[in-house]
């Protein structure tokens, strides 16, 4: 079985020091980087910390930076990347330990964009709302975000100012703004118009490039700019 080297950037929070560890990992044509990390944890070094769960690119736990690129390691084959493999924690977030970062700031942003349907009154439970397939298509991509945080790690604006609401939360804002069941359009446009919201985006577009689920936050954010601008002009 071929073998490769994982070079992992580590952080020891109790001593406050960064260091690197190197491990030899055997792999086959279908071995993922995540399987390699689990191999290290099981057999080589039990002190290495990282998050993972579903191993099928749905839960969004295992975002890391692989060879400088924000990556979901469960869906990335060892064979497909340059070796030795250099793994770092996600950029732009505080590091808790090794490859584990603190993403609480995103949870706050999610709440801030009001990530839920707002209506004057909820309908009775015997009545479904009519939503045409083409209306559903409008939110197809923006509702596919798994909160893996790769886009935040790739975003230079968020990297320089954490006040920025950021790609995933803005995509989700766009998603609720375009949901035909929602009745809080003006409230949402107000959020989109804030200083730290859509306008702060400098259109680098890396968020869309790194997204593992085909969400296009860059497009959604530019749309939010247009919607906000038109709204401000005509109101």
């Amino acid at each position, binding site marked *: 079985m071929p073998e490769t080297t994982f070079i992992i950037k580590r952080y020891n929070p109790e001593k406050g020091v960064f260091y690197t560890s190197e491990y030899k990992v055997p792999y086959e044509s279908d071995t993922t980087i995540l399987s390699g990390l689990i191999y290290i944890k099981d057999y080589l070094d039990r002190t290495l910390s990282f998050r993972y769960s579903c191993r099928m690119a749905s839960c*969004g736990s295992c975002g890391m930076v692989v060879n400088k690129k924000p990556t979901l390691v469960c869906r990335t084959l060892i064979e497909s990347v340059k070796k030795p493999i250099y793994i770092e924690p996600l950029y732009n977030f505080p590091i808790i330990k090794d490859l584990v970062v603190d993403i609480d700031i995103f949870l706050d942003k999610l709440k801030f964009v009001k990530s839920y349907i707002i209506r004057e009154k909820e309908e009775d439970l015997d009545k479904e709302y009519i939503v045409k397939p083409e209306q559903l298509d409008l939110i197809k991509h923006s*509702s596919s975000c798994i909160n893996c945080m790769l886009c935040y790690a790739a975003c230079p604006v968020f990297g320089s100012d954490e006040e920025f609401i950021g790609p995933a939360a803005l995509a989700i804002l766009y998603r609720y703004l375009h949901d035909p069941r929602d009745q809080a359009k003006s409230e949402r446009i107000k959020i989109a118009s804030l200083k730290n919201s859509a306008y702060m985006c400098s259109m680098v577009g890396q968020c869309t490039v790194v997204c593992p689920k085909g969400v296009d936050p860059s497009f959604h954010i530019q749309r939010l700019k247009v919607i906000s601008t038109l709204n401000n002009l005509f109101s």
Partner: protein
Amino acid sequence: MDKYSHDVIVIGGGAAGLRAAIEAASKSPKLSVAIVSKVYPMRSHTVSAEGGAAAAIKPDDNFDLHAYDTIKGSDFLADQDAVELFVRLAPREIIRLEHWGCPWNRDQEGKIDVRWFGGMSVKRTIHAADKTGFYLLHTLFQTSLKYDNIVRYDEYFVTSIIVENNRFCGITALSLRDGAFHFLKGKAAIIATGGAGQIYKFTTNGAINTGDGMALAYRIGVPLKDMEFVQFHPTCLPGSGILISEAARGEGGYLLNNKYERFLKNYVPTKMELGPRDIISRAIVNEIRLGNGFKGKHGDYVALDLRHLGEEKIEEKLPQIRELAKTFVGIDPVNELIPVRPGQHYFMGGVHVDLNTSTPVAGLFAAGEASCVSINGANRLGSNSLPECLVFGAISGEHAAKFAIEHDYCNVAYENIQIEEKRIFDQLLKKESGIAPAEIKYKLKETMEEKVGILRNEKELLEACREVEKLKEMFKNVSAGDKTMIFNTDIVEILELDFMLDVAEAVAYSALYRKESRGAHYRTDYPERNDKEYLAHTLVYKTREKPQIDYLPVKITKWQPAERKY
């Protein structure tokens, strides 16, 4: 109020837990509801559910039809009063989720669309492409953010439930972020921690599915019910065990053997690919045993053929299946066959609860896969588990809130909490040297896979019980290889393994004592169903010695057990 006191504590943040928390929180803004989860809620394994959620919402459907399909699917082990309650409440839960924004697929008129699923006699599976669990989980999680009286403890690992005089008092939990040990006081609690697929080697379940809640309940004397009934999903990717949704067959996919025959004609001729999961999984095992499987590097498999569906339908209805097949086995189902084999998927059994989701401990409730009401009996029908999480999650939230309103906190003997703290810090963390959890974990997985799998017999089940006992002995010598406090995932794995061993014990013993074949529990030495002796739920209790087994009669309302033929 003490920062660490809550009226209702929900353990687990998946579909059942979130639905429960929202229900409890909406009963009164004065109620403080905590969600305690070892992961951020949106990482919960509900996220991986694919095919859909069943509910009788269409004019050609009715409650009796859904109920009877479920009961027949369960091989008549489901409690019929529970099933009747479930089918009546499922439609409003589906509509509720639709009101909260869940992007269910629509028909041309804009109404909620339905698809075929195994064992169902009409189209009744509501879906959001083939990522239903993902959409459902995120809808629930994002909706939960609306409630200021829901407090989250993200990445807190629950180590024990504290009970005094058969009354729930609180939980102990380890905060992964800083390694601090906490006692969370509560008036009521809901166990909603999902399944335990990690006790098997080949499973569709995520790494977090280690049966924590089942073991937490088992340890305080609450019985686990019907644990021998373990569902093996027929179609998983060889090697990884990644789930290929039943929706693939619901939308018209075929299962083929190496002669390119739709072999199910020899097993479930009237249902073919839409037969129930237990029968199809055994059919695949049999085809492979007859030499009719394809050869692969991860063992023999059969093929799932979607080619005739065409690219447009696959993209619209099964986009994730295509993505998974491309990413993990390098195959595009538009023009190639997907290799599949059965893998552990779901536990029909779980924490013993009644129709109100109450456990025998006052103030302690359970819902979702971690619990057993039972609506699934010996075999769950695909797409009944998501609505089960919603229906019984909501019921548990309602009843836990009611209990919290009517009761006060109970007084806790702090020695009990200190004992638990010592167990973790002195026995596991500080112990100088010992064996690594991986050594035991992989042996456990092998044992369960080989001896408590799809086909079972007395000899192997006995061996499995002995082996689990031995591994439990070995576990006493485990120590942490990481002695630090902050985000120590080594200690998490050890605590999880400890839970897995308890759950495995419950499964193996329950299987050993049920000397009949019913649903997913197939005994080659007792191949017939035996209603005379076993039309009953197994209850397994933890004791100092071997687990103790008891039985509880099945509740039958209007459908007499009949031969189960498709």
